Structures are given as structure tokens and as C-alpha cells.
């Protein structure tokens, strides 16, 4: 009987079940994010050798590159959740999509800030209208548009569905950001890490980067679970299971 997976997913999409599930998993995600993040920072800032060309300045990639990946990854998750929310009208998908938006916006913001710090050292300029920088900035505006549209509605679910539609329209930008370094040959350097074929980067530099990438993923999960838990409580505030939790909290 292999149909326990869809059954389990179906059950998970009910707010009280997801609330408990997220509550159980969240401490683990926080712990993993912290441990992996510290290991990656130690590996990147202490163990990894200086770059032959960029010296010690290149070390900002251990923050910059994982955040840049996450800025696209979170948008993709938001897009998928938006699609589910619009097609199947699942409340949890709406909450996940809208909770992802501020996290993704923060990752995009960090990417832009660290990128411009790096640019100041490497290219001698804080900002240039290069294809990847510009498309990343557009990504930030997309996130902000989704957040702004969501908050401009009085009815939260209606706001969530409307903002989810905007998120879906904006998903055309994700491949543009991802491939911009390959399509336009401007200032930003090309990709050095490849899933297929050998990477053009030393192993001692790659492992902290990949570890940091895992750490940001776990951070995203932890943050998403925290946000969805709060949002679910607010959204379902009249329901029995929320009242039950409130009473239990009060007794403690």
C-alpha cells in the first residue's frame, strides 16, 4: 500500500496537524541551521585559503552566494505554494506562500548588500547596472509588491489569493535572474559551481559554501514554520483547536 504518502500530505494540509508538525520540527531546524552555519563560517573564514586573485575579500561569497541561491529558491517555493493555493484553494498553501515572501525579500536584500560590498572591493564600485544585479533588484521589487498587495486587503485570505496571483505572474523573472550571467556577458562573474561536470573551484572553498547552503535552507524552514504557526493561529482564531491551545498555554 503506497498511498500513505498522499494520505499523509492530505492530513498535513489541515491547520492543526501542520501546526503541531511544524512545532515539533522547528527546534531541529533551528539547531541544524545554527550548527551548520557556524561550521560553514569557520570553514569559510578560517580554514579556507585566500583566493589567488581576490585575496581574503572573496570570503564574502560564503554569505553572498547561499543568500542569492535562497532568494530564487524561496521565490520558487512561493510560486509553487501560490499555484496550489489558487488551484486547490488550500488554506495552508496560502499561508506558506505569504510567509515565504518576507523571508525571500530578506535573502534578496542581503544578497544585494553583500554583493555591493563585494563589488566595491572587486570592481571599485558599489553598484553597476549589470544584468544580474538589475534582475536581482527587480526580484526584490517583486517580493515587495507581493507583500504590499497582501497587506492592502482587509480580508487576509482574499489578500493572500490575490498576492499569490501576482507571485505567479512574477515567476517569469526567476529564470531571467538565474541565467542572466550566461545570457549577458556583463561585469558579474559567471557561475563557478556546476551540478553537472567539474566545478571550477577548489574543494577547500566548496565545502563551506555547500554547508552554508544547507544552513540557509534549514534557517528558511525554521523561519517559515515559525511564521506559518503564528499566521495559522491568527487565521483560525475562532476555531476549537486554537482555543484548546490558548487554554493549555494559560494553564501552564
Amino acid at each position: 500500500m503506497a498511498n500513505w504518502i498522499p494520505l499523509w500530505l492530505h492530513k498535513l494540509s489541515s491547520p492543526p496537524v501542520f501546526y503541531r508538525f511544524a512545532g515539533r520540527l522547528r527546534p531541529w531546524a533551528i539547531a541544524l541551521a545554527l550548527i551548520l552555519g557556524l561550521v560553514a563560517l569557520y570553514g569559510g573564514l578560517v580554514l579556507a585559503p585566500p583566493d589567488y586573485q581576490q585575496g581574503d575579500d572573496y570570503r564574502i561569497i560564503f554569505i553572498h552566494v547561499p543568500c542569492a541561491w535562497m532568494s530564487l529558491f524561496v521565490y520558487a517555493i512561493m510560486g509553487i505554494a501560490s499555484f496550489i493555493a489558487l488551484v486547490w484553494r488550500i488554506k495552508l498553501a496560502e499561508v506558506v506562500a505569504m510567509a515565504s515572501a518576507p523571508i525571500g525579500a530578506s535573502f534578496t536584500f542581503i544578497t544585494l548588500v553583500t554583493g555591493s560590498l563585494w563589488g566595491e572591493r572587486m570592481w571599485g564600485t558599489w553598484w553597476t547596472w549589470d544584468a544580474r544585479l538589475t534582475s536581482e533588484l527587480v526580484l526584490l521589487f517583486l517580493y515587495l509588491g507581493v507583500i504590499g498587495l497582501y497587506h492592502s486587503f482587509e480580508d487576509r485570505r482574499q489578500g493572500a489569493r490575490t498576492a499569490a496571483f501576482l507571485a505567479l505572474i512574477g515567476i517569469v523573472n526567476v529564470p531571467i535572474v538565474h541565467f542572466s550571467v550566461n545570457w549577458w556577458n556583463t561585469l558579474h562573474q559567471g557561475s563557478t559551481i556546476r551540478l553537472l561536470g567539474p566545478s571550477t573551484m577548489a574543494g577547500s572553498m566548496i565545502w563551506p559554501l555547500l554547508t552554508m547552503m544547507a544552513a540557509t535552507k534549514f534557517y528558511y524552514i525554521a523561519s517559515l514554520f515559525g511564521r506559518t504557526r503564528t499566521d495559522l493561529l491568527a487565521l483560525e482564531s475562532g476555531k476549537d483547536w486554537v482555543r484548546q491551545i490558548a487554554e493549555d498555554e494559560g494553564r501552564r
Partner: protein
Amino acid sequence: MADPRRSGLGHACMAVLRRDLTLAWRQRGDMALPVLYALIVTSLFPFALGPEDALLRRIAGGVVLVTVLLAMLLALDAMFRSDIEDGSLEQLMLAPQPLALMLGMKILAHWLATAVPLIVIAPLLAGMLHLPTPVIPVLLLALLLATPLLSLLGGVLVALTAGTRRSGMLLALMLLPLCVPVVIFAAGALAAAQEGLPWIAPIAWLGAAFALTVVLAPLACAAALRIALDS
């Protein structure tokens, strides 16, 4: 025999178009505002940057494009506003005719009422900034393709904000990411024409984007309106 509910589809389209154009014409003052706005913004550039001919000539194409875009953004908010307030949009949603087609007609009427006057004064705006005369046909062609694109994209976003009270600044934030490619290709055509290079490729991209949008945007607009007004 034709489906009686679908008969007179063309008639319905014409009715929506004629109604919106009549409404726009009755409020000619509102129609003139984007044009005045564009004139004022354009005249600010020589004050801000200094009146050197060479500098103005170099930025003229881009300034006219951005000014027209901003003027259209200003008028966008009003696209469905009065129809939502008096409930005629809900009537349109209940009508047997396909909503996407009716909305397409409304967007067309809005484009005719706001963008066409802007395109008409575009040579004047370009002249104020000393854009070389041979580039003006390219400018008009680029505007002729870029402004309906903006109207269509804007229509979808206006539909999304239909359920909210105030949406002016939000519209700007939402439209900006979507209209970046439009601006890049239109400005690319102008820059190429100004340097005497072939400019047909970016115009062709604009045309392709227009063809795609004219098919998809009314459908997206109808879907967005159904989501935003469903309560």
C-alpha cells in the same frame, strides 16, 4: 444555429467600447491630465540637467519613454475604478459574454483614451529635448508597441488591486518589475536608431511580447478580477 447567448458578441464588444469611450470623452479634463503631466515632467529635465544640446539629445529617447510610462501609470488607477464603485463591473462579470473579451475591450478603450494622446504629443516631447528628427518614426513605432503592452500588463495589476481601497503607489511597485523588459527593448531600439544602427531586432522583440500579452493578459485580467472581487 448559433448559441443565442453568444450571438451578438461583436455587438457586446462594440457596446462596451463605445460606452467607455463616451465616458472618457465626457470627462475630457481627466483625459488631458496625463498629457499635461508628461509635458511638465519633460520640461523639468532641461532645468535639472542644464540646457546643453548634446546631453539632452543623448537622453531624449529614454526620457520620453519613461515620461510616457509614468503618465500612463498615473492614469492606470482609474481603469476600472468607477466601474467597481457603481457595480457595473460585477454586471459585466455576470454577463453571458466571456469576461476576458469584455475586459480586453475596456483595456482597449483605456489605451485609446490615455495612450493615444501621449503618442500624439510624443514628437513634441522629443522635440523639446532635441531628439534627432530621423529617430522620431522609430520612437513612434516603439511607443505604438510599448504603450499597449503597458496598458495590458497594467490592466492585470489594476484587476488585482480592484478589491483594495488605495492602490496608487502599490501599482507603481507592482508594474515596475513587469515593465522593465518593455523599457529595455524600446530604449534599445531608440539608442540603436540614434547611432544609425539597425533597430528592427528590439522592435521585433516588443512586437513578439505584444502578441503574447494581447492573448494572455485579458485572460489573466479576468482571473485576477474574479480572485480580487470574490468575497
